[in-house]
């Protein structure tokens, strides 16, 4: 299969490096931005916008290698469309949160969708990253191969760093074949029972690829061979959902009714088997119980304490107006490491300073 040729679009890396070097010299902050679809996520930052969309295009794609390499400013939808043509997909099923979403922005935020606990997270599929650090140096880490232990795993370190360690310019990802068949069933289950049940199911080799639980209803998706999917659906019972694909994409993109009523939306990431938390509000639960969306009048402190008490963390995912504290405060020892790494990558603190944490 021929590789997809590099687009004729201009290579903007030189320009990006000049912008970053200049900002480093002047000590003026930059706000790294792709499609700006995730502007809601994170702390408010000031700074000159560096728009990555001028650096776009799939650079290399070989379906038989299960590897795609694309520039950071490539629209996520374009990457997915190229893969779909060859029967493949980004198995972490990233949410877009807007048509303009770019690949770089998605990985900077490390966002993964409903398939995450079964296939892996965004970072699990990253094989290599080219990035420009806070001094304007162009650095290549990892590569286009699945097994690679040469050097520290900086390709994955920067996934989810929200641009604070460097500007990604190119990313190589491991991709997977689309499943031959998918089906979604719906069962009536209360929360505590459902959390336990889905985790019991996971002890068996069932082809579960997504789980959603809210308002007494449990949605389960199966992905795999036609036979496996049919057998699993029959085994677990429930009602087959006609437009299952729509349901999961609405969940992933926060288009379900649950998300509409939300003045503030919390994301709690907790050990999946944790029983229902006693915080007031409405819940929508995914990832076998590992990712829990909460719309609540409870205070940030109360929510964070409850998440931390069970070994998890809480993010103020969406809120009205700028917020001081979005991501869960780091333990002191971990915060110290973050500051040391920030200094190693961006000594002048010009790349998205404060977007993730005040001191980073």
């Amino acid at each position, binding site marked *: 299969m021929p590789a997809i040729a590099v687009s004729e679009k201009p290579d903007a890396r030189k320009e990006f490096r000049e912008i970053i070097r200049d900002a480093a010299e002047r000590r003026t902050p930059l706000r790294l931005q792709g499609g700006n679809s995730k502007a809601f996520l994170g702390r408010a930052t000031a700074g000159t916008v560096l728009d990555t969309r001028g650096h776009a295009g799939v650079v290399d794609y070989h379906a038989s290698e299960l590897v795609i390499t694309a520039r950071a400013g490539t629209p996520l939808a374009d990457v997915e469309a190229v893969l779909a043509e060859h029967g493949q997909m980004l198995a972490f099923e990233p949410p877009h949160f807007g048509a303009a979403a770019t690949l770089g922005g998605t990985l900077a935020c490390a966002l993964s969708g409903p398939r995450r606990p079964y296939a892996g997270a965004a970072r699990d599929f990253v094989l290599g990253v080219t990035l420009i650090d806070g001094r304007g140096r162009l650095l290549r880490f990892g590569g286009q191969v699945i097994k690679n232990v040469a050097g520290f*795993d900086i390709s994955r370190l920067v996934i989810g760093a929200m641009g604070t360690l460097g500007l990604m310019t190119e990313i190589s990802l491991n991709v997977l074949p689309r499943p031959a068949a998918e089906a979604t069933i719906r069962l009536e289950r209360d929360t505590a029972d459902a959390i336990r049940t889905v985790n019991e199911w996971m002890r068996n080799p069932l082809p579960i690829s997504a789980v959603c639980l809210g308002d007494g209803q449990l949605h389960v998706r199966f992905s795999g061979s036609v036979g496996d999917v049919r057998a699993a659906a029959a085994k677990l019972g429930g009602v087959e959902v006609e437009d299952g694909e729509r349901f999961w994409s609405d969940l992933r993109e926060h288009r379900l009714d649950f998300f509409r009523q939300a003045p503030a939306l919390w994301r709690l990431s907790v050990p999946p088997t944790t029983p229902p938390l006693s915080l007031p509000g409405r819940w929508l639960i995914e990832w076998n119980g590992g990712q829990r969306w909460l719309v609540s009048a409870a205070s940030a402190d109360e929510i964070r304490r409850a998440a931390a008490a069970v070994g998890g963390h809480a993010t103020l995912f969406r809120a009205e107006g700028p917020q001081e504290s979005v991501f869960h405060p780091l333990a002191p020892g971990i915060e110290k490491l973050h500051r040391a790494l920030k200094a190693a990558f961006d000594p002048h603190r010009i790349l998205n300073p404060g977007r993730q944490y005040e001191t980073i």
Partner: protein
Amino acid sequence: MASLPSSSPDEHQSFDRARVAADLRRLLGAHAVIASEEGLRPYECDGLTAYRRLPGVVAIPTDGEELRAVIGYCHGRRIPIVPRGAGTGLSGGALPHSEGVLLNLARLNRILAIDPLSRTARVQPGVRNLQISEAASKFGLFYAPDPSSQIACTIGGNIAENSGGLHCIKYGLTVHNILKLEVVLSDGELVTIGSDALDAPGFDLLALMTGSEGLLGIVVEATVKLLAKPQCARLVLACFDDVVKAGAAVGNVIARGVIPAGFEMMDNPTIRTVEAYSHSGYDVEAAAILLCELDGSVENVEEMLGKVETILRESGATSLRVARDEAERQRFWAGRKGALPAAGRISPDYYCMDGTIPRRHIAAVLTRIAELSREYGLRVTNVFHAGDGNLHPLVLYDSRNAQELRIAEELGGKILELCVEMGGTVTGEHGVGAEKLDQMCVQFGADELDQFHAVKRALDPAGILNPGKAVPTLHRCAEFGAMHVHKGQLRFPDLPRF
């Protein structure tokens, strides 16, 4: 032989063995410290026996607190620390420091908990890889990464190396299969990295720590993921009269949507060598053999099996055999798994490379390796984790001839350079350790190496954790080193190596 890494941290006082041993005995008890030459001797190398050096002192803590005490002590005096698990590593990552403490983690060997509902195991670093799957087995669960040394190698070492195994293409590497680490940093501080949830706030320190070869912190406890055991596994053995066709067949299977649990390739010299050794029933006339293992539900495996057979036939397989039962499956695997010991039988020495390449270049790379082999006048046999592109060429030579050793090293270096040139890497799973420092210079530029050093300084400002390994200093980037095995004598001859 390439020179050993010099490995002195910037500033440490001269090492007084008796004094350090006495101090450590006060912290750990007399039984937990070794300072006599005969006691130190077993620690002089790991699985890479070409590099040997006596450690200053060996310390054997029995729990996390003792381990922290040792690290705190060493930090205060700027004494280098080299962590060691089972010592099975193939790149000299546990090569001792002559003026340092070798930290033997063998006694931290308890499985602390297995939770079948959350499908996790909490273990100490000295627990052996296979022990986890054995303990999880009664719950129908297993720990997926399965490096070939899994009966001996420890989970702490696996995390340090980001170990793979035969089933990476489907189940991932160590980094994909761990959730949380308790790590002692170089100043003795204990931090929790990752969490029992599926992610943790902030940077992905779990990924940074995995594969960091003991340079950034020392794991004292790990929580790993367990998976439901697949219902069944079937193995297909396919012969080809042309390595180009075999290489293309691998890509064809994967491009058509099948992800095998394992996908291995052997070239003709390997087939001949291993057949004589393990009698697996391989066709010694075949130019290449593919082993393709499929696992999952009985029905799904049957479905995939049909598909794979068709694709392999269309790709030019001259013969296809599906293992009829478990005994035959094991027999088909035995040849592949015995590839390294078999090489040791036909050559006084061999030198095992560990490059990874994009799979589509396999035919070109094998052709070029054959040319290099002729050019340098040394035989090379090739075994290949075809599914994930990880190639293990074995350069056969005789170390009694000093000239041959040098030639083997030069040839090996050319092979690794070829891997980099083809868009691959100089090490897929064995690590850089003390061995591939020179090859790192081929793969990375000065800026990347400088950034690795910056990361090292950020986590270990004193530079006491496994100094001199994994990342070369810029002025070192000149020579080439490799794994040498004399007369087939691997340090652990009973361990399969593949």
